[in-house]
């Protein structure tokens, strides 16, 4: 039922006041919301880490250059991962909006 909770999450974001009988089980913040919030928090943390490491590197406080590259690469990959999740959610939303009623 993850796709249904996904729709619930998107509906919440879009200010959706729609309630289908199917969605009565999804109350308040859905599991999908929590997963997404946690993921975004994680990405935020990784980006801040890479920022701090880059600043330290510029200030000459880093002894291993590969540490900087690894942090930057991790931040880059988490960002790509988030964009991919975003794309999937938007795709699902668009699919729903295209539905003829």
């Amino acid at each position: 039922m993850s796709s249904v909770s996904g729709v619930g999450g998107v509906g919440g974001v879009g200010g959706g006041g729609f309630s289908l009988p199917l969605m009565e089980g999804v109350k308040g913040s859905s599991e999908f919301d929590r997963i997404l919030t946690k993921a975004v928090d994680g990405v935020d943390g990784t980006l801040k880490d890479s920022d701090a490491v880059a600043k330290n590197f510029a200030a000459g406080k880093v002894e291993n250059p590969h540490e900087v590259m690894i942090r930057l690469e991790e931040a880059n990959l988490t960002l790509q991962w988030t964009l991919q999740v975003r794309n999937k959610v938007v795709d699902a939303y668009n699919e729903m909006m295209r539905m003829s009623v």
Partner: protein
Amino acid sequence: MDMFRSMDVSGSGMTAQRKWMDVSAENLANARTTRAANGQPYRAKSVAFSQVLESAGADRPGVVVEGGVQVSGIQEDQSPFIQVHDPGHPDADVNGDVLMPNVNPVLEMTNLSAASRAYEANIAAFNAGKGMFLKALEIGKGQ
């Protein structure tokens, strides 16, 4: 983040190999140093590695990661110094003999090569992990 564990492990490997290279460079630089600690000739140093069994706290994320490697210690080579006859040397004894460091330059050059190749191997492992992650992002594409 846990999904980057292999990358952090590779990073710890790179740090360890760099330390190995530092020590080899120190040995080579001091191959003819006759006055080191206690006025004795320089003693060749070697590094020992150990596996990290527990990740460090949140203050050093990714630096000391479980399953990675760390330098557990740097030992001094206790083999005898090399005696050279050189009466003109400032540190020569009454017989004109000088004690030279027990550094073997050939061995150090080999260590330098090994450390540099091991560093590259860690980078290759890192890139393989990155490639896997990027491939995972392509799951479901092109439907």
